[in-house]
């Protein structure tokens, strides 16, 4: 018998690793109240941040709102996304408050059909990046506290009126960030055995488990319209584990996979459709990728020179319009020029049959790893260089309310030396670049089997441009000013 004709045996080693199989962890995740238990500590921390932001020291390095938001939360978030998955959405404190409110307020409306896409959240994502720079949120505990409060308020309003997880799926900018970044995560909530789903007639994972003999839902199904057997990848998955709890066959796990693999294929995805037909998702990937560079650009010296030059050129003395122009250039003009040119070259050189815009949409997802590499480098830098600052800030917060439980603040505690962190940053950028090359090559191979390199090279060039810009950025002298237009 020809050995190649023997079907591969599925040994336990060849099966994906399932986080739910870890003793203790699996038990916790299967527990119906796992989510509130994980959310409660973050809710407490959020309340402390709001109170300290509003009533504590006005200096950002001395305040828990700014230190926890802009150093620790962002750093932990991207590292968890890189090493595991979208576990922040699982432990999201906003959803705990929403859930409590829904005991009293039952939403009556469906989310408007016209808004069932990512355009609103793409705009909000860009708006958050814009207000972060305009109002220097990183330097203002007060504004940071109000941002958190505004988030809670918006969640309650949106999910108070609209059914299911409308806020998560269509509004939340942090959630969209997590959805895109988790394409590079090594774990995915997924069915273990498709055959079990084929035989299943109750569809509890999407419809919710009902009380026997009644229509009353006792364990809800996926609120984000992801039908497990046809779910592909992490897009729109909040890791809420509702499907895990609802499945009567214990057939949903948190399975390992090759990070980024979901970007390589373009199957129809439950609750999503085809990636290649979703211009709104491509726009989200663009804001995610180019916004990563823009957000880092806002903290280095050259941005002030650019702002001053633009201000003089256009006779503008207010920051908002100047910043608006910079955002338009980075988030609209630059992507259109770079991606548009790459799509045009691909059509001409590789003879791709796709039209210009669909080609651009398809390959945009290939840049997501590069964007994630930049977010990791940027947020990782702040997190690691300021890792221990949480100690003196907490000591100070307790001392200020008359409970010096942890002693005198040790203000000299900071974090890793920046020269060591810079090596880690370079590693993240290389990882992101390699990921983008791998994904774009895979897409090119799929699109143009006979002219793979001709289809790949234009997009690899875009990746190289972004990587070079990212490398240039991390070697720029850091400069954080709350007074951009001062000269």
């Amino acid at each position, binding site marked *: 018998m020809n050995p190649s004709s023997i079907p591969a045996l599925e040994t336990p080693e060849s099966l994906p690793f399932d986080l739910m199989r870890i003793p203790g962890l699996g038990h916790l995740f299967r527990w119906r109240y796992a989510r509130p238990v994980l959310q409660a500590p973050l809710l407490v921390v959020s309340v402390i941040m709001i109170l300290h932001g509003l009533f504590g020291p006005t*200096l*950002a*390095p*001395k*305040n828990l709102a*700014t*230190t926890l938001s*802009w*150093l620790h939360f962002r750093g932990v978030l991207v590292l968890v996304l890189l090493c595991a998955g979208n576990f922040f959405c699982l432990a999201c404190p906003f959803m705990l408050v929403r859930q409590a409110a829904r005991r009293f307020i039952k939403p009556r409306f469906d989310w408007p059909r016209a808004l069932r896409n990512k355009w609103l959240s793409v705009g909000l994502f860009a708006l958050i990046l814009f207000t972060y720079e305009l109002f*220097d949120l*990183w*330097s203002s505990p007060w504004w940071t506290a109000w941002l958190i409060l505004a988030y809670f308020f918006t969640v309650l309003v949106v999910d108070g009126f609209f059914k299911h997880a409308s806020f998560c799926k269509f509004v939340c900018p942090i959630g969209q960030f997590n959805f895109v970044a988790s394409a590079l995560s090594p774990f995915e909530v997924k069915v273990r055995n498709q055959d079990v789903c084929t035989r299943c007639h109750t569809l509890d994972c999407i419809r919710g488990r009902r009380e026997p003999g009644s229509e009353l839902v006792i364990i809800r199904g996926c609120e984000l319209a992801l039908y497990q057997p046809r779910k592909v990848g992490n897009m729109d998955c909040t890791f809420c584990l509702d499907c895990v709890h609802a499945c009567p066959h214990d057939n949903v796990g948190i399975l390992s996979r090759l990070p980024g693999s979901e970007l390589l294929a373009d199957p129809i995805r439950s609750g999503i459709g085809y990636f290649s037909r979703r211009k709104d998702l491509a726009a989200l990937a663009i804001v995610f990728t180019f916004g990563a560079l823009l957000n880092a650009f806002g903290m280095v*010296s050259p941005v002030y020179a650019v702002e001053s030059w633009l201000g003089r050129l256009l006779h503008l003395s207010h920051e908002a319009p100047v910043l608006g122009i910079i955002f338009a250039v980075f988030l609209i003009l630059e992507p259109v020029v770079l991606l548009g040119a790459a799509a045009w070259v691909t059509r001409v050189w590789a003879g791709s049959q796709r039209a210009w815009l669909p080609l651009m949409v398809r390959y945009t997802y290939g840049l997501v790893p590069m964007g994630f590499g930049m977010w990791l480098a940027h947020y990782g830098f*702040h997190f690691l*260089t*300021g890792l221990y*600052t949480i100690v003196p*800030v907490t000591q100070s917060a307790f001392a200020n309310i008359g409970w010096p439980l942890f002693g005198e603040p040790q*203000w*000299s505690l*900071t*974090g890793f030396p920046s020269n060591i962190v810079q090596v880690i940053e370079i590693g993240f950028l290389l990882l992101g670049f390699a990921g983008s090359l791998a994904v774009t090559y895979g897409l090119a191979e799929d699109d143009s089997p006979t002219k793979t390199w001709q289809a790949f090279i234009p997009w690899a060039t875009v990746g190289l441009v972004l990587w070079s810009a990212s490398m240039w950025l991390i070697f720029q*002298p*850091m*400069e*954080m*000013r*709350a*007074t951009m237009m*001062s*000269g």
Partner: protein
Amino acid sequence: MLNLRLSDSSAKAITGAQVALVGDMSHAGMAPVFGEANEIKPGQYQGRLNLAMAGDWVILLHITTAGGQRLERQIDVNSVRPN
């Protein structure tokens, strides 16, 4: 280099005070810098802080007068440029 003149409400020089300096950046995560200012003339104090990074700084003065009174003052130093 920081030059300070300390005086009371009647403009009389405050002598013999201890002045500790703490420099913080306007954003979280950066190490504060510490120093102290010494009296070089009656009521005039001079100290040095190494503001190692460009950007906005906030300098906190922790002053203890000869009589034991404690004061705190904040000075915003914006747009620090590298040498």
